[in-house]
């Protein structure tokens, strides 16, 4: 029997929680090409001012025929797309309220209540609430996988060609449209050694605390995901603390911000990063088509020239 596929995009959706219900979480890598959006999501393609990622995510949900989709409130346009998608596609949709604030106990409790509500949603199409032991086992496995990735990344970093300029890539989720970007960076004698995009290290929860995981796995799951330092949180100081720490640890020399047109969350951070970190920062357009690629080439080249 094929598992029910639950699509999502936001880092604050814990895939372990979906797996624990016996369903298959799929964090979609979306296809940003205009053709895909127009073909699969004609109604949304007509909307002016719509974030290309939001549109492409909806198109990808349809193209990949997900059974259910989880949106979150972390992005205003994604929140609103959740309301429009049912007119385009018959998948079940769920809007997970992710608090923008993080400094009150109430905000954390609210997030936990939302995860419980998500569990209820998953049960409406075959999911079964997990036991604590089952959840803890899944979490441990996922934690081990992430740790393995971190170890590999560290090894890769330590073995990297020291003559290459070390860059951080930050911004919104990576799409299929971005596969060429590392090549461009290499072409200009650079190497991305920190993936601080929403789908990269930035969007990963920290390691679970094994004692708390044994005591109350759900609470630990919620705590780990709630603590992800996204720039949309308010205030977003934890994002800068995380970024500063990782820039230093990996001896980063320059930052590339990938921004989707109309994405205010990342747009405002360009100047802020420039003011905070003493290294060059450039912005490149994500999902911008062939014209944007030419601009990206020039910008990456300029970034490399600015790094001494």
């Amino acid at each position, binding site marked *: 029997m094929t598992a029910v596929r639950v699509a999502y995009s936001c880092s604050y959706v814990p895939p372990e929680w979906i797996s624990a219900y016996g369903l298959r979480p799929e964090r979609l890598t979306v296809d940003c090409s205009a053709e895909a959006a127009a073909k699969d999501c004609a109604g949304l393609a007509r909307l002016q*001012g*719509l974030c290309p990622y939001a549109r492409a995510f909806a198109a990808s949900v349809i193209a990949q025929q997900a059974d259910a989709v989880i949106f979150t409130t972390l992005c205003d346009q994604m929140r609103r797309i959740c*309301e429009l998608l049912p007119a385009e596609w018959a998948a079940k949709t769920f809007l997970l309220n992710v*608090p923008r604030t993080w400094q009150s106990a109430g905000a954390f*409790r*609210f997030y936990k209540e939302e995860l419980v509500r998500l569990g209820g949603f998953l049960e409406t199409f075959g999911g079964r609430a997990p036991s604590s032991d089952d959840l803890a086992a899944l979490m441990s496995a996922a934690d081990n996988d992430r740790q393995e990735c971190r170890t590999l990344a560290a090894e890769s970093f330590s073995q990297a060609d020291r003559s290459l300029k070390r860059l951080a890539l930050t911004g919104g989720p990576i799409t299929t449209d971005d596969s060429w970007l590392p090549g461009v960076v290499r072409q200009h004698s650079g190497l991305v050694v920190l993936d601080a995009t929403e789908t990269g290290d930035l969007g990963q929860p920290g390691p679970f605390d094994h004692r708390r995981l044994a005591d109350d796995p759900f609470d630990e799951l919620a705590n780990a995901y709630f603590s992800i330092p996204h720039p949309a949180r308010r205030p977003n100081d934890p994002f800068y603390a995380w970024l500063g720490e990782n820039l230093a640890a990996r001896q980063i020399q320059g930052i590339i911000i990938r921004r989707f047109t*109309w994405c205010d969350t990342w747009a*405002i951070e360009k100047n802020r990063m420039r003011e905070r970190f003493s290294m060059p920062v450039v912005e490149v357009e994500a999902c911008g088509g062939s014209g944007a690629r030419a601009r990206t080439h020039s910008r990456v080249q300029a970034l490399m020239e600015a790094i001494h």
Partner: protein
Amino acid sequence: MKPKLAKITLDQWDARYEELKSAGLAEPFYGGPLRRHVLDGDLRLADLKFDDSPAALRLWNFLLSEEDRLFSARDGGKKIVGAMKDLGTVPVMALGLPNVVAFYPDGAWWIPCVMRLGDELLGIAQSMGAGESFCPVRAMLAAFATEGHFPIPDLLTCSVGATCDDFSAIAQRLTDFRQSILWWEIPARRVPQVGEEAVDLPGGLTAPVSQVRFVREELERVRRAIEDMAGAKLDDAALADGIAKANGIRRLLDELRYKAYTTTPCPMPAIEMLVAEMLAIHFCSDRQECQAVLEELLAEVNRRIAAGLGVQKADAAGIFVVNPPADLRLMNLLEDCGGRVCGSDYMFGHALDEIPPDVEPMEALARTALADPMAGPAGQRADRILRDAEAFGAEAVLICRIPGASHCATEGAVIAGAVEASASLPVVEIEVPPLIDSVRPNIQTRIEALVETARRARRRRK
């Protein structure tokens, strides 16, 4: 046939003002000719047409003197709360303490229009990282940086959660300029699930009890911050008093809106009604005077209704306006095209509805905050627009698109779809920049088409 009242230009107001003064016009302390605001840089006034009544003069003077009022409040030892985004809740809390005054820095979004871009706020905002992909509220960022448009508040609050990303990002940028912000959360309002404990909100909405409880806790943090700033206890009795005063304003506006939007001929121009509605969100920093201003405006409307006088022809097409236009001139243009306003949703409907008087004050405020039309699904907002459009007898709907606003990419389609499907009213969605001059022919043509369509439908109904 009764004569149509004339709307007058700024030049005509100069003469009208002298005429009124000669006739013994008594004005409040902030009174004076409208011309002085132009001399202060509010250049757009010279392009507008105004109602010619003393009540309208008082309304405009009250609005345009807020900056002076805030600086005077500070000089007088009052503490100032800058409330951002919640549009109607935090200022009601501030009403509970006599030494506190609240205002919305958000209002700076109209400065580029009112000053005809003269203060270059949008350019300054761009240099700070908030370019044209942001809505005009980015002017607020520059207004804080230049410190020239309002006093820097003693306490700055900002509601986040289900808000537009433009605002949230711009507010975050403010913290780089020594502005510490009390962030508080209004989550995306959702429909209660089957079996879930629910509560009624103002505006005919419902929400899960858990969401209201969360907002109430958040507002408790705001209450403590106001108390810390003011050095005084903001107890429930004081809050209840503030709520009662706010409801007094809301009832007044309710009557004013009903009469102005349903009476034919239309007794008050669209632009003055827009300004009057805006007073609901924070009383323009003086609740008592706000009430007096609105009472005088209502008295003028009543007088005109009794006399059968109006500012538009009786056959003007009734237009329901959605979203505040970034350029006030649009309200004049709508009337020049043969329309009149019959209902509005300027994004703060929750600031017009009465705050529940029969529950604990913090509970009442939480319910009101959560009833924000922008915090819920656009479909719910569309439902309210449909109800109000019917109640006000609107014949068409004009959706003003705010350039760059994250909500405008999708909500127009939802609202237009609902209006066309349920009420068969014609709808147009028009992007309104801070100055419409360069796109005026296009906008005018579209509004004229909307008016003609509405009139044709009216003829068919007869």
